[in-house]
């Protein structure tokens, strides 16, 4: 088109200005930007709330706070800071137990569904796993206390008898594991609770492994398992880490099940078969909240702040791990 001559029928320039989709596109832009900003605002609001409400308890001298709040006893080595220390330790210990036990099982389930099971069985099993995620945590707690804990007790005794020389499995002084309401039980129930989310997310990631890479591995004589290690795991690595972090997030924040199962205590002990040794932040807050006075609530909120910080750190760590070898990720 070299001619610049305009015939009378040519559409006038004004018709090139707008089109019917423009308004909707504009609205979409603002809605999505708004939704994105809302996340930031919410996060900032939560952080501000935690900081402001925690401040009165954090800034007060330990002795004074001890006089004002019934559960803080600086003279017994349970100042606010010390309690937070014990609880952070207990929270991480129990969550790590849950992750160590739950992740391999969850990944195994995901692999079975995505690469081993016949299609029809895989679908049914997938729905079943998703259903597990829908069970309320209080039900897990009840089931844990009523069924799992008594069931596990003889097994714990066995562990204590034969592996008691390993510090973490040391029994109470009497040598008898007289109750199953210990950190390991809480960890096991949490493991069961985080399996659905980890396996559901990993399954979706595994299913997206490019056929091309799977066939490349198989064509050079890889067995199914070797193919999974060569093609599926490297591709799904960041997804698996993300899934595990989602599970860890749930384990860190889980309140009801831990509260109902564990016989709480405040120590830095490594003994996961002994009662009255550990508690988690969330369960401790739930335990003390109904009886707490104003400053007590401020103290509990300070503990909540600690949990918030841990969760944030865990997520940042996960991001960092995922991004470390992004050049080699399946995304290129």
């Amino acid at each position, binding site marked *: 088109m070299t001619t610049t001559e305009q015939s009378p029928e040519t559409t006038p320039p004004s018709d090139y200005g707008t089109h019917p989709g423009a308004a909707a596109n504009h609205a979409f832009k603002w809605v999505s930007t708004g939704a994105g900003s809302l996340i930031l605002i919410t996060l900032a609001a939560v952080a501000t709330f935690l900081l402001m409400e925690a401040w009165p308890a954090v800034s007060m001298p330990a002795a004074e706070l001890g006089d004002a709040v019934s559960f803080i006893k600086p003279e017994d080595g349970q100042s606010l800071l010390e309690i937070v220390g014990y609880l952070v330790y207990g929270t991480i210990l129990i969550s790590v137990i849950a992750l160590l036990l739950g992740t391999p099982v969850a990944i195994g389930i995901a692999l079975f569904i995505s690469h081993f099971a016949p299609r029809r069985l895989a679908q049914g099993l997938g729905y079943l796993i998703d259903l597990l995620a829908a069970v309320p945590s209080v039900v897990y707690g009840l089931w844990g206390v009523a069924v799992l804990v008594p069931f596990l007790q003889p097994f714990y005794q066995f562990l204590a008898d034969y592996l008691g020389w390993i510090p973490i499995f040391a029994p109470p002084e009497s040598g008898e594991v007289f109750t199953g309401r210990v950190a390991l039980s809480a960890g096991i129930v949490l493991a069961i609770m985080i399996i659905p989310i980890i396996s559901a997310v990993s399954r979706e990631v595994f299913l997206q492994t490019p056929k091309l890479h799977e066939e*490349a591995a198989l064509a*050079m004589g890889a067995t199914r398992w070797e193919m999974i290690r060569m093609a599926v795991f490297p591709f799904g690595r960041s997804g698996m880490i993300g899934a595990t972090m989602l599970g860890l997030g749930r384990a860190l924040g889980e309140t009801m099940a831990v509260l109902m199962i564990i016989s709480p205590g405040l120590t830095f002990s490594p003994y996961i078969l002994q009662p009255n040794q550990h508690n988690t932040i969330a369960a401790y807050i739930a335990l003390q909240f109904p009886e707490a006075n104003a400053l007590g609530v401020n103290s509990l909120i300070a503990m909540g702040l600690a949990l918030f910080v841990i969760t944030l750190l865990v997520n940042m760590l996960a991001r960092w791990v995922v991004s470390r070898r992004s050049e080699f990720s399946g995304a290129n």
Partner: protein
Amino acid sequence: MSKRIDVNNLNVYYSNFLAVEDVSLAIEPKSVTAFIGPSGCGKSTFLRTLNRMHEVIPGARVEGEVLMDGVNLYADAVDPVTVRRHVGMVFQRPNPFPTMSIAENVLAGVKLNNKRISRADADDLVESSLRGANLWEEVKDRLDKPGSSLSGGQQQRLCIARAIAIKPDVLLMDEPCSALDPISTLAIEDLIQELKSQYTIVIVTHNMQQAARVSDRTAFFNIAGTGKPGKLIEMNDTPTMFSTPSEKATEDYISGRFG
């Protein structure tokens, strides 16, 4: 090492659907055999039965036999995993493992066969395989970079290096140039000519000029219509196939009258 392949009365099924019917042919060692034919005629499906890769597709199965130097690949005692370690394959689209470096890609198959390989042996093997695939000069300074950082043609040659690193008896190529530009295609075709001194090569191609350029023998597959099984129409020395084919259908196809 290179071996001859004899296929006797092979039928390929997807569940109950007969995809390829009654194929019998012989593939000579140290030669290039090309499979040509219109889309959907079953040539790729048939190629995959030569290293049992069709079994990856649910419901796919075969009847008949594929003899490699007299050994039936479908005998009860034969493990498909072992078959694939003897019969390498290069795919339509280059598929280096994105999480592995160039060197790791070359060694991927070797590590399956022989977990303990000394550092020096591994380095030698990487070099000889990449030289064998005409890629060494281009990548020797960046062997630790991801395989996906290469161009499409280089990636395909990397896949060939990966396939020949395990020293297969036979190399199958499923339209290896269809995703590549003409220059890269030429590089692969030159490579095929060099590789045939050591390997039995079978190549599926849509490009008849390519078949004429690289192959010693050509097999023409055709399909009577949708839902009908693919069949081997005729197979002969490539010059004969392209000058004086004995079947009317072959002549129509290679002269561009259909397909």
